[in-house]
């Protein structure tokens, strides 16, 4: 099971991003494999905000959220009291930003791997979870040869 940060989806969508190709491979393989993906609901406004602030296009930014919400295997989790309280603890102990802490807390709760391109999540996540980049995960899965994310796509 994965928790995937908004940074990966933003890079998947914008082809000029340095991490676009690897994000594309990761997200596409994830969807094709029907792997379980959990995302906090806040991911959607995060993505639409980042896009809208460059594009100045409301409809397109909203459309991005709709498309992501319907991706195979993805389940969007409400930030309820329990998750918020976990995120408080994570943020306070690991000096993470509030938004980052919500993803980390969700990964902790679900014992899931956190896939992200956010440096602070990668470096400050507690030892209880594995925080990795899409590249790391694709390589690790290929090395392990356990299939669901393997892909021949460039």
């Amino acid at each position, binding site marked *: 099971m994965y928790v995937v940060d908004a940074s990966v989806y933003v890079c998947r969508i914008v082809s*000029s991003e340095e991490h676009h190709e690897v994000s594309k491979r990761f997200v596409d393989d994830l969807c094709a494999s029907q792997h379980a993906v959990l995302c906090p609901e806040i991911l959607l406004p995060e993505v639409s905000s980042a*896009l809208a602030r460059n594009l100045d296009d409301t409809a397109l930014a909203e459309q991005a959220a709709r498309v992501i919400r319907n991706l195979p295997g993805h389940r969007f989790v409400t930030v309820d009291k329990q998750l918020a309280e976990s995120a408080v603890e994570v943020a306070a102990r690991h000096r993470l930003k509030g938004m980052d802490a919500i993803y980390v807390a969700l990964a902790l709760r679900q014992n899931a791997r956190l896939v992200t*391109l956010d440096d602070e999540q990668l470096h400050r996540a507690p030892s209880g979870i594995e925080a990795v980049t899409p590249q790391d995960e694709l390589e690790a899965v290929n090395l392990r040869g356990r299939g669901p994310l393997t892909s021949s796509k460039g």
Partner: protein
Amino acid sequence: MSSLARVSADEVTTLDYRLLSLPGRGSEQEQGRNVHCWRQDDSSPLMHSTTLCLVGRLVSITPHVSTYWHMGLSTAQARYRALAETVGERTDPLAELDRLSRLVSAAWKPGKSALSLLLEGRR
């Protein structure tokens, strides 16, 4: 919808975005990939006239925009739904993601990267 000429999602890839984003009133024309798009708005949303001209094929979605508008959708949402219905449902989510990526990437303005904008939002 049976009276409508159906067009493929591929034909409308670029057009879709332009249709949604054309600003203001009057008539505008965009060209690209042999696709032309006109939109004429009157002052009332009921008077929307949306016509696609795809390589000489005229496809009007005006009645469907009005239908969705009457159902309570905003003008932009109504137009999107009508267009989506016209081109048929896109059932492949990865193809939809690719289509979205093409639209966003084509419209992306130089400046801060998308990742920077996202991380800024977390400050």
